[in-house]
């Protein structure tokens, strides 16, 4: 897989308003690598779907670890939670997390998509629906195809799309599927994604 170096960031200066990230197998380490360097005053809220078991304790453990590693505040939202800068919203296990409208989240118990609840596709599609071209969508390591269609929708709406270089992914199925479906704007090694986001979002 060839890494696609993004265009100069000046060319990309749209009004980015939201970052959405999808991952499954290997996600905790990949998320830690990307999220821990982001500064406290990082200007965009971040929504994450990470596939994980429905057991409540595992879920709390996950949040606790990410919070220890990140400068931004990591939380599991309630339904209709307001989307605010400075926060990272992690989809609760066994619920879909969607963007209800600009600035607000919604949760649902609707049937799983690609055997997954939460589903990355649902988050990405709903984010693109509400934020149009102002979304940055990122697909990381994972063992199924969830997220490929969602990334395609973000791209079709004019948003910015990025996939982890599959060579650097613990499991490459998810980024490979996303790359094939969406032909993302950038494909980057895991270690370079954080600094790229910081540059991309500096306005």
């Amino acid at each position, binding site marked *: 897989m060839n890494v696609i170096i993004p265009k100069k960031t000046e060319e990309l200066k749209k009004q980015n308003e939201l970052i959405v990230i999808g991952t499954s197998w290997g996600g905790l380490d990949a998320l830690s690598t990307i999220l821990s360097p982001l500064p406290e005053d990082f200007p965009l809220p971040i929504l994450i779907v990470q596939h994980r078991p429905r057991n409540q304790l595992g879920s709390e453990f996950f949040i606790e670890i990410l919070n220890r590693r990140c400068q931004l505040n990591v939380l599991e939202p309630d339904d209709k939670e307001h989307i605010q800068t400075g926060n990272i919203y992690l989809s609760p296990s066994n619920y879909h997390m*969607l963007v209800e409208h600009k600035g607000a989240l*919604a949760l*649902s118990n609707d049937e799983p998509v690609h055997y997954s609840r939460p589903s990355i596709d649902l988050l990405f599609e709903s984010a693109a629906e509400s934020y149009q071209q102002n979304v940055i969508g990122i697909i990381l390591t994972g063992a199924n195809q969830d997220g490929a269609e969602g990334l395609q929708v973000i791209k079709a709406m004019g948003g910015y799309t990025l996939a982890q270089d599959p060579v650097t992914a613990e499991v490459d199925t998810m980024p490979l599927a996303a790359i094939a479906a969406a032909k993302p704007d950038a494909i980057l090694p895991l270690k370079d994604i954080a600094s790229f986001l910081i540059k991309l979002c500096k306005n």
Partner: protein
Amino acid sequence: MSDSHKDNELELDLFLEAIYRKYGYDFRSYSRASLRRRIQNQLERSKLDNVCELTHLVIHDESTFIKILDHMTVNVTEMFRDPHFYKSFRENVAPQLKSYPSFKIWHAGCSTGQEIYSMCILLKELGLYDKAQIYATDIDHQVLEKAKKGIFPIDTASLYSQNYRESGGLYSLSEYYTARYDSIIMDSSLKKNIIFADHDLATDQVFSEMQVIICRNVLIYFNQSLQDRVFRLFSNSLDYGAYLCLGSKESLRFSSCHPFYKTLDNKYKIYQKTGQHEAFPLNRNNEDSSE
């Protein structure tokens, strides 16, 4: 917003308006993000290209509507769902109920009834069942019929039993049902204090002087405006000092009623009404004024 986005929203609005005007079911204020997806799935199932075609079918063919209705609402439920909620109910709500000579519980959006029977079992084990009058309501007539029967597939029994144990149940769940062929049939002694009734949270009125309202994983399907109507409806229905139990990811925080409540369990969302207020008006004044 792009034009195509606006056009899609318009199509969806007209579809929901058609259902409301023709059949009286009000989905206009349901949470848009998941509703859109559910209707998209319906289009694929019916092999249709767009929502307008579906609107046409729904207007002219009632049987299509009845089929669709099942997919418009979500009926995910299980006995002792979120077992720790029942534990918390035992600790936070039951002691107060014990002090009452009788009390009323409204279970709003009871779906196929698993969670009602769970509550009845809990009340029995606390020695409170005979003091309770339980109102079980849902918008969907078909699921209410199932709830009344209290017959569930036998392959769910092991999950239900495990939930029951985790909830702090005293015996074995099988004490409360009879297994027959591929079903479990809930004991009829659990049903004697339950009244089942149709009720639409979007349009219908209060059930007065409740001591407990349980409404779990229903509000997540409503938009903010409809949620707020329901919270006002609940507040008007609850006595001073009474309890409101929501789904573990549903919150009163975003509602104007929040100041009238004390949070007893923030994780399993048990609230107590501690403020006095006049009856709240139940009309909604933003996106739909047709109430």
